[in-house]
């Protein structure tokens, strides 16, 4: 499913819409970047509370379809700037991580 459609159905707000047509095949939930580096798979949408700048590098390295900050968390301007430069989709969910992941799972694997 396209990220644009996922965002519409889940009520996610785009902070950086670098590639809204990116394909989302699956999801991943983690706040530890070392864990994401080791285990996340390409085309997963990553739900996190971590807002360090390294989120951008890790998401690009793993070829994720985008990053969703849970519970309305907003990263700093340097993260947004970096995501624009790197062409990484950033979104915010007003729902918490459990709810966001649950909705995404129902949407992708009905």
């Amino acid at each position, binding site marked *: 499913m396209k990220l644009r459609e996922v965002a519409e159905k889940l009520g996610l707000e785009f902070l950086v819409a670098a590639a809204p047509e990116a394909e989302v095949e699956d999801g991943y939930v983690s706040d530890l970047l070392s864990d994401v*580096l080791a285990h996340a798979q390409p085309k997963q949408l990553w739900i996190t509370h*971590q807002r360090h700048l390294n989120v951008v590098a890790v998401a690009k390295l793993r070829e994720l379809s985008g990053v969703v900050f849970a519970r309305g968390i907003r990263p700093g301007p340097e993260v947004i700037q970096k995501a624009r430069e790197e062409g990484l989709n950033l979104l915010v969910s007003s729902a918490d991580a459990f709810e966001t992941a649950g909705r995404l799972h129902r949407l992708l694997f009905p």
Partner: protein
Amino acid sequence: MRWFRADLHIHSALSPCGSLAMSPRRIVEEARKAGLSLIAICDHNAGENGVYVRRLAREFPVVLMGMEIQASEEVEILALFPEEEPCLALQEELYALLPPIPNDPELFGDQVVVDENEEIVRTVDKLLLSPVPLSLEEVTRRVEARGGLVIPAHVDRVPGGLLGVLGLFPPGEWPAVEIAPWTEVEEAKKRWPELQGRHLFRSSDAHYPKEIGRAWTELYLRAPTFSELSRAILEGGGRIIRPGPPLKEVGWSA
């Protein structure tokens, strides 16, 4: 120059997770027994017990003021200071920023400042185990602005280590990092190639008296002092930093 043994990450009774037996007097006794020439007292977001450890030790061993500061990313860094004033000033600044969560000694343990006569000076109310609401970079900036040295703690560990949490080094210098007490240096360099070319420290991260000096760093310096340590990291000049052998027993890891 000659070799000195250093353990730059020792908790005291001020850390809730630190044993109440970690009084300044006991810390000095154990550090002497372990043959340490240089130590640092690094409690969670606090450094006050270092004052009393210094009074007792009288430079045998040399005692640096320090803190283990938890940044908002839940990455922990050691902040080391040559003098008491900048460390205590930063402690006060961080305490004001800590979330107003009271410590529950039954759950987390006591947080006490203990003087050189084993008397409790005061009990700290807010839970010190919380992260301060400052980014890793901002914490680093504030430590360095006060003349302190930053050494990210147990970088390869989850939880709390810079690499364990953030996956890779963020932009910045990070010339010196601490590895976990049990980490095999060569294996760690394979997993985290960015450790190559950085000064690696190993420390005990002692929370109990018998753990003091269980892991250490060998330093080749003119004297076991803050300025020599700082020069070893920033200049070299024939000074050497070499982590001691790993602990057999593995604790937390990624």
